[in-house]
């Protein structure tokens, strides 16, 4: 049964009866891309954000991207960066709380060595957290992994980082064409036999104005956004950007 399509036009390639495979000229054991797994309208929540805040717009796009790519049969999100940040942050908070409690309970002169230890530990944890967020995590918003079992076990790993390209200040007329843009950098790695043999390593890049995805009330046109993301990711999977 052919999958249900949403409002946009169908892709020119014929969709095979099995439904979840793309009918292209690629080899039959190609893993499915995000466009081929369709979102039904009932699954959608309405997303409404504050149009004037670029941070809100970026966050809404990031969240929509994460939701779109972590659907079943697609990538599974790896939360390593988030978990490291949570661990370091909460460790720092607990150290700070313990040090504060200790300094409150014990006399000042006697508590000094303990409070010094706690303070230095807190500074180290906070510095580590900042360095990790700046150097290791950077702009990355999504790291996903997928294993598909066709003829051989193919492991895919996709890393997506996003940023906002601001409007150049030469013309300050607010208009849909003159809006800040959402820019994505996608890195795609495909390998087999436990990561030992590399099948593909591609990079893709794309950017689009926020005004293409959000109307004047701030409602997000999710189909458009998801189609754009799906095309970018499938382009990376095929190696067009390389």
């Amino acid at each position, binding site marked *: 049964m052919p999958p249900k399509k949403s409002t946009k036009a169908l892709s020119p390639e014929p969709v095979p009866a099995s439904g979840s495979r793309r009918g292209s000229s690629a080899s039959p054991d190609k893993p499915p891309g995000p466009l081929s797994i369709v979102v039904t309208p009932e699954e959608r929540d309405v997303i409404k954000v504050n149009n004037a805040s670029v941070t809100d717009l970026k966050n809404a796009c990031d969240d929509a991207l994460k939701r779109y790519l972590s659907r079943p049969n697609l990538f599974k999100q790896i939360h390593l960066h*988030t978990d490291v940040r*949570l661990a370091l942050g909460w460790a720092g908070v607990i150290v700070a709380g313990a040090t504060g409690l200790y300094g409150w309970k014990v006399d*000042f002169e006697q508590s000094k060595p303990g409070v010094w230890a706690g*303070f230095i530990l807190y*500074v180290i944890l906070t510095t580590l957290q900042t360095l990790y967020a700046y150097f290791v995590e950077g702009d990355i918003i999504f790291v996903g992994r997928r294993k598909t079992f066709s003829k051989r076990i193919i492991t895919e790993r996709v890393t997506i980082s996003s940023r906002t390209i601001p409007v150049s200040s030469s013309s300050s007329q607010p208009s849909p064409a003159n809006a800040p843009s959402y820019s994505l950098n996608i890195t795609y790695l495909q390998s087999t036999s436990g990561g030992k043999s590399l099948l593909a390593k591609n990079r893709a890049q794309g950017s689009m104005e926020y005004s293409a995805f959000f109307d004047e009330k701030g409602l997000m046109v999710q189909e458009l956004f998801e189609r754009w993301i799906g095309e970018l990711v499938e382009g990376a999977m095929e190696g067009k950007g390389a």
Partner: protein
Amino acid sequence: MFSEELKTLRRLGFRHLLLQILNFASVIASGLMLWKGLGLFFNTESPIVVVLSGSMEPAFYRGDLLFLSNPPNERYHTGDITVYKIPGAEIPIVHRVLETHDILVSNATAKSRKDPFAKYLPGPNQLLLTKGDNNHVDDIELYQGLDFLERRHIIGKVRGFLPYIGYVTIAMNDFPQLKYAALGGLGLLALIQRE
């Protein structure tokens, strides 16, 4: 009123909730550590205090913020303004030093072999008498039986001040609802906003 935010939170998941709570908790933690760090660097239990009474007028008025430090090996001189706390009294007092007495107590440490005067280190061995500028009598009655203050009662020496800022603290203490309202507002803001 919060249904939009609650829906967003539920959609974004548990990790996101932990991150938002971490935002709030880390603001509190960094404030606390800043306070403790200042106390460590200036060797004082309370590096910033608020003047509560008018006993030091016209130098300090009620509501002034004072910055303290307590260098351990420096002598305190007559005329220094100190903040001290008598054990048994809850509130620290800001008054000026009127008299100092140095007790030369033998301090048998290895250092004393190289430096014959090391055992007479003035820091921990000083007795002080204080009086508020705006009071008629000195502080003997406040000492709860002691004749002099010892260095271990002193929280620190005043190094600088800012006028009027302390009224915020006074208001928070007199109206505790303000404190809870401020904390609650901060918490709400941190939970709802994102980075």
